[in-house]
């Protein structure tokens, strides 16, 4: 059942495509040796190349090219062994050269595909049109001075991958799922950190609406939307706006718009007289980018396992599809889980990570990158359960102490004497004591009240401070009740 928005004239379909700008993870910029770190002092990570000084020339960073290739491979896309940079010419306060070096006619990566999964479990393939490398612009600050904008060029020249999708999405949910999936893939690949609030990923959202069975109507581009939630909101807001325009007898004009996150509406960004004519032409300062197939093969061989593959592997290890999904959402979580599960029972490891551990993260408002218990210690805790040093119940207490003290579980069990009692003599003595104190209940049991069995076990465990080996306690109770 497809998603539609009801207008006064009936249902409307949505057609959505995304252009995602993803900042490449690299030490230095695409064409200069200045640093890329986030949050530095203004203009402190700027070379004369990035500031567009006279006589400065670009020299490409091999790692940025490698990252684009890795990303292309991760998106199951064709890698173009011959690509080229073009200049996109326009004037803007934070564009120091007066042009952006980009790849227009010949991008480094061609067509690919991403599979998304929706809440109801349906899967859908979203086509990737292309991926190209380009420079980021600087940043304008508008709130520092009443009459002036301030320009910081730290971002100028940082490498971006622009990943363009086909107009294959049909609902806000699909757009959100696509962006989330893309982010997840890039983070697994280590090619973009996906920190959307730092601007490491921004989406230009192309939206149009149509009646069932129609071709495409005019689309508008909503620029620089910086979260999954906002992408979903922007799609809906823009679609509703367009529906209203069409239904009131108007015509949607192709234009660039901005999403106002405060008011939840899109608004026009640039006046018509500024209609852009980018005058693309081949960048004469850079020869073509020619890649060796053997280099691409090497990069392919060294790609990390991607989310879909990892998820399938977890299911094969015996995890529920749900646990496999949850554990692979973030690669850090998956890495944590793998450390916990290594050489241990995967199912039990998954239960602990998704259960007590996630609960603790939530409760303490901590992040997987800053866990209250290390994966190694959690694994050690599982070992203590497995070799019967402690019971599962005691383990929960030990886990809480681990959070409080940061200590290893073995040390805690040792210090606090939480080691499970497996000495049959001691257990027999405890059981005998319980039976002696509860002669009346023993009589009831013997006259057929079977349910009381659990009572004797519970009383014994209580008497032993929870440390009695549960299986042995059961066995002894059964034997002595005979």
């Amino acid at each position, binding site marked *: 059942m497809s998603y539609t928005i009801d207008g006064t004239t009936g249902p409307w379909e949505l057609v959505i495509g995304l252009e995602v700008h993803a900042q490449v993870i690299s030490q230095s910029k695409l064409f200069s040796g200045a640093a890329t770190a986030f949050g530095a002092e203004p203009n402190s990570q700027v070379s004369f190349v990035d500031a567009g000084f*006279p006589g400065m020339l*670009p020299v490409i960073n091999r790692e940025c090219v490698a990252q684009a290739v890795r990303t292309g491979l991760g998106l199951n896309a064709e890698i173009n062994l011959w690509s080229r940079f073009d200049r996109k010419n326009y004037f803007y306060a934070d564009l120091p050269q007066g042009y952006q070096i980009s790849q227009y006619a010949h991008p480094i990566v061609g067509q690919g595909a991403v599979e998304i999964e929706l809440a109801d479990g349906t899967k859908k393939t979203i086509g990737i049109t292309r991926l190209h490398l380009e420079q980021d612009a600087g940043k304008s600050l508008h709130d520092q001075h009443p009459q002036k904008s301030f320009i910081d060029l730290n971002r100028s020249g940082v490498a971006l991958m622009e990943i363009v999708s086909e107009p294959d999405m049909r609902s806000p949910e699909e757009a959100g799922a696509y962006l989330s999936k893309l982010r997840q893939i890039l983070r697994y690949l280590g090619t973009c950190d996906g920190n959307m609030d730092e601007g490491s990923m921004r989406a230009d959202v192309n939206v149009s609406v149509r009646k069932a069975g129609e071709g495409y109507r005019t689309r508008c581009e909503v620029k620089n939307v910086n979260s999954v939630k906002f992408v979903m909101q922007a799609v809906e807001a823009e679609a509703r706006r367009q529906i209203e325009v069409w239904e009131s007898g108007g015509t949607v004009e192709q234009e660039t718009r901005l999403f106002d996150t405060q008011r939840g509406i899109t608004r026009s960004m640039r006046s018509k007289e500024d209609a852009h004519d980018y005058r693309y032409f081949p960048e004469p300062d850079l020869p073509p980018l020619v890649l060796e197939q053997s280099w691409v093969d090497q990069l392919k061989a060294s790609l990390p396992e991607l989310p879909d593959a990892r998820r399938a592997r977890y299911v094969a290890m015996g995890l529920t599809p749900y646990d496999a999904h949850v554990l692979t959402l973030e690669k850090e979580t998956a890495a944590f889980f793998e450390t916990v599960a290594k050489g241990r029972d995967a199912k039990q490891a998954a239960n602990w990570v998704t259960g007590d551990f996630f609960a603790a993260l939530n409760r303490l408002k901590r992040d997987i990158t800053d866990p209250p218990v290390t994966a190694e210690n959690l694994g050690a805790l599982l070992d203590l359960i497995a070799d019967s040093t402690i019971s599962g119940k005691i383990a929960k207490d030990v886990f809480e102490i681990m959070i409080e003290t940061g200590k290893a579980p073995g040390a805690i069990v040792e210090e606090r004497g939480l080691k499970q009692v497996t000495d049959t003599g001691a257990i027999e003595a405890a059981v005998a004591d319980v039976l002696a104190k509860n002669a009346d209940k023993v009589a009831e049991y013997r006259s057929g009240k079977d349910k009381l069995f659990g009572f004797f076990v519970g009383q014994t465990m209580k008497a032993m401070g929870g440390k009695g080996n549960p299986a042995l306690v059961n066995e002894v109770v059964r034997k002595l009740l005979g």
Partner: protein
Amino acid sequence: MRPTDYTLKGALEALAAGETTSVALTEAFLDGIARLNPRLNAYITVTAEKALEAARASDARRAAGQAGPLEGAPLAIKDLFCTAGVQTTAGSRILGGFVPPYESTVTANLLRDGAVFLGKVNLDEFAMGSSNTTSASGPVENPWSRANDPDTRLVPGGSSGGSAAAVAARLALGATATDTGGSIRQPAAFCGIAGIKPTYGRCSRFGIVAFASSLDQAGPVARTVEDCAILLKSMSGFDPRDATSADLPVPDFAAACARPVKGLRIGVPREYRLDGMAPEIEALWQQGLQWLRDQGAETVEISLPHTKYALPTYYIVAPAEASSNLARYDGVRFGLREAAKDSDLRDLYERSRAKGFGAEVRRRIMIGTYVLSAGYYDAYYLKAQKVRALIRRDFEQAWGKVDAIVTPATPSAAFGMDERQDDPVTMYLNDVFTVTANLAGLPGLAVPAGLDAQGLPLGLQVIGKPFDEEACFTVGAAIERAANFTALPGIRA
């Protein structure tokens, strides 16, 4: 011998022999500049103090046995090369007061080899011109004048007019220059000196104010072919900071000057014989070819069929690239800013650029913007790139038959400062013989070969195969020897 009369090679020998010092040479040139520059206007900026300091340091290095290949030689630097701590204007108001904090690779190479910089020399604004009349610092005068009309002031050619005039008038031993369509060879020919535009990629473009990136090349002008060879050796070399810099060894160019031309095949392109070409240009060309035959070379007629399309091609490619390269001059990070009281950013850009750029630069930015704009790209820019490919192919086919090509350097001798200024296209025709080498990326050397009827110098051009500057030097030096060009300009230190 007066110190200003030395050739570069002669000065280096005299320095090595202890017959002079860098300080003595530098003082002599500075003295000449002080006397003649007010008239010639070859220098925009004279760095006298810095030069003397550098000369003293150079003499000390020589005394310590650490002399570089250019140790102590006073040179002039075209004001298109960024020089650390010294104002660099590109001949434009828009870069007025700009002091680069960095040194171009070419000038850094010269400093590494011990050269002393006297100052920055004049040029057409952003190297756009063939007369050096478009500079914001005013026109440069050619030190030569017509025998029968000594009062008419002549242009030195352009865009490296300051470089050529300074060297011809003995205000430097040699100078750096750049050539996008003929800007080294045409002024060298107009001023009776030698100059070479090397193969595209031979000299790094890092730190040179860009005009048209796919055509710009640095090169030297000097009084002899061998002096050019010595300078080019220092200026050249692979630079990782320029992605178009060629990673090739730099040959001993000076050695090539002494090689015989015997057995070389010299191409004579039939298409360079223009309709209405001045008879004395044609005569000089024939004379040059005869000199080469006399020394044992063979001359071979060849065809470069797309020659006539070279200038129109150039006047699409160069303005297009320039319109983009000059977008960075916007009044924000450096240079001139012009704004009205309530200017918004767009108005600030438009005012700064209208005031900062001269008429020729504005015209070329307009043309370049137009030929790249939506709907016109294919008809103009793409078409020009294809014709450019054909021009390069013409040369590739010629190299199967010849080792070098000899042509006139310019269609005329230097003209008056008030002549030919009305119609841009007439001015553009100055580069008709030189521009093909830029389009094809080839080395081209201009060598003075004779005088016209009015006593003005005329030059011949030697075009070589890619990265075969040595052939240009061998053939150029052979012409130079035969021509025995000893005439001197009227104005000189």
